[in-house]
């Protein structure tokens, strides 16, 4: 390993967004132990997570953490013009989006953009302006694909996106971010890689990137008579895919998925929150009532096809060009406090 360390003079100098999110935290930890990564500048809206304590206080000084709101132009401009970034000579940016979705309680930013779209725009704008930057690796969602009826939707990277005018806002913001990055795939000066993810299963069975599991009134609801299939991927595999994308020369869109595909009802049982099948009219009523009583409305429109139909991803391109193979299997472990603990076991 010492030999590798000496050879890593050409190591990456990385800026990483939303490092305080669950995926960001895991990514920072992995990058910190990656000998080919020389410097990490982690950004996040919140205070530095405690898991970074050891890295921040280390004598190596490879990690720096800064609080910044990525959706605000002023804060982003200040950061990208700061001496910190100039000194760091950043060559790669890893864009981890917030795993949440816009709700009515968060007012849209100026220009009517929801925060996620604004983030994507600002990140790309500053990435293009940063002369030293060569690689931009972004995480996106596979919810952007247009669903057909049934559970047999197998999407490749060239599948059609859901650009329908009645697309629900939480899907639309993913589509917008996706298309913002797609515009720079042919840029010769900046290599842009976009990884589209299905439901991401993190530590303790937490699920990200799946608005269907956000629930209404703290209960999981699905449309009666339908049980969409969910493609899953472990957050550890997401981190591996990002590292592979960082070190490869490939560009463009890549689907990333794990081994498991399970129906939403089974997945709900796995994470200890079974979903209740309700007629569509009743779901609509529950959504309106939850808005009326002041709670966040249903994260997905009641007419969204994602409540009815599932999809899986064809990961052949990632396998061939990135060398990505899922390394972890997701399965319910022993029951703790009346609920399963999802575990990601290495293959």
């Amino acid at each position: 390993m010492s030999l590798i360390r000496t050879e890593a003079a050409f190591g990456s100098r990385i800026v990483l967004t939303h490092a305080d999110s669950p995926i960001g935290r895991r990514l920072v930890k992995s990058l910190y132990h990656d000998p080919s990564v020389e410097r990490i500048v982690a950004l996040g809206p919140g205070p530095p997570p405690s898991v970074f304590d050891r890295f921040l206080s280390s004598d190596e000084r490879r990690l720096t953490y800064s609080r910044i709101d990525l959706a605000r132009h002023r804060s982003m401009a200040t950061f990208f013009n700061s001496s910190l970034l100039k000194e760091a000579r950043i060559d790669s940016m890893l864009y981890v989006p917030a795993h949440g979705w816009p709700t009515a309680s968060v007012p849209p930013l100026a220009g009517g953009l929801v925060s996620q779209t604004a983030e994507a725009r600002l990140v790309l704008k500053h990435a293009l302006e940063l002369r030293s930057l060569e690689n931009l690796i972004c995480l996106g969602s596979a919810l952007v694909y247009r669903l057909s009826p049934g559970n047999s939707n197998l999407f490749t990277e060239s599948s059609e996106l859901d650009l329908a005018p009645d697309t629900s806002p939480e899907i639309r913001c993913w589509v917008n971010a996706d298309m913002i990055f797609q515009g720079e795939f042919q840029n010769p000066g900046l290599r842009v890689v976009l990884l589209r993810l299905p439901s991401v299963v993190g530590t303790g069975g937490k699920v990200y990137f799946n608005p269907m599991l956000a629930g209404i009134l703290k209960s999981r609801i699905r449309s009666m008579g339908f049980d969409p299939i969910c493609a899953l991927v472990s957050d550890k595999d997401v981190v591996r895919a990002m590292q592979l994308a960082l070190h490869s020369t490939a560009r463009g869109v890549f689907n990333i998925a794990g081994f498991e595909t399970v129906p939403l009802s089974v997945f709900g049982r796995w994470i200890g929150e079974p979903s209740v099948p309700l007629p569509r009219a009743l779901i609509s009523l529950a959504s309106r009532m939850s808005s009326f009583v002041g709670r966040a409305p249903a994260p997905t429109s009641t007419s969204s096809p994602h409540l009815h139909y599932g999809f899986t991803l064809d990961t052949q391109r990632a396998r061939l060009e990135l060398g990505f193979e899922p390394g972890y299997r997701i399965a319910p472990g022993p029951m703790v406090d009346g609920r399963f603990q999802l575990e990601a076991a290495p293959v």
Partner: protein
Amino acid sequence: MLDSSSPHVEPPPAVRRRKPALGSDPFALDVPKNRDKDKSNDKDRIEPDPFLDGLVLLRQTNAVPTQRKPRAGSPRHPAIAIRERTPPKAREWIDVPELADVELPDRTSWVDRLLSDEERRRIASIAHLAGGDAAYDRFGLSADVVRNTLPIMTALYRIYFRVKSSGHENIPKRGPVIMAGNHAGVMPFDAAMVVTDLLLQCDPPRLARTVVDRWAGTLPWVNIFYARSGQVIGTRESFADLLASGQAVVVLPEGMSGALKPFSERYRLQEFRVGFIEQSLAAGAPIVPTAVVGSDDQMPVLLDFSTFAKKLGLPLLPITPTFPWFGPLGLLPYPVSYQIVYGEPLRFYERYSAEDARDPELLRFLSRQVRRAVQRLIDQHR
């Protein structure tokens, strides 16, 4: 929003910071280390991972300038071998063992008591098709659902429709195959009996996946049953994926026009669609003409109001001697006798390549060849 109090900036010691020209730079503030090393948690420590070593080698490979050509005879960089370790490889076929090689499983539920030893052995041999530990394949197939519905399907197969079948020697024992059959009788019992026949009569048993119309996915509960029992909505990607994994796929190229054809045109095939020919050429899969004799008599269609049905949001609206007069019960098929015949496989891919599939005229021509082969089987065994 910037928070100037909390940034933790650790600039490299060798770099000397300049004073900013315009105001203070919040990111250039030095924050004393208020974190204690003792707080570090051992669980955050990552074990040595060969994946990381591979990443380093991968990066070194990419760092080699691509313009520079390697000298002849020079030793190759070891990292290049790492990159070339992932050659393009086709999907592996999912094989099913022969019945003699399958151990008879114990009876674990009341459903097992309804199944014979051979049927349980057949179910055990295909259990791994449904994704192994995950219990569901990528399209929602569940081996448990197949096992639980097998007693019903077997009763329909043996008692209700009294199916007789022949020509199983024409079905490849392994690898992708497309079973192209006729379709009639409104309800898709013909496809269900072909799937059951392939499961019960072939050795090794083949769990065929039927390609169904998109509207089937919009029907509540029906879509769940279809997915769990192995039916797949017909998209190019799903069709190609099934063939790439070496599975048997049942297609009914007549579509709904075959199912709703009037009684006066029974046993006369309608125009075949061409998508399955394209898939056959792309995947190198033989097409087995499959004739189901009997399904045309199971529910004679007197009138078809499909155009009117679409305005009502219904998939179809046939008028039969029993439907809609007896309500949903009128959709039950008559207990006719089925005869399933498998013809000799047509291997178009030996003569035409996947590029030839772009020619619509050729696709139509080959589609008519298949239609003619199925029609001939029907005429011979009717």
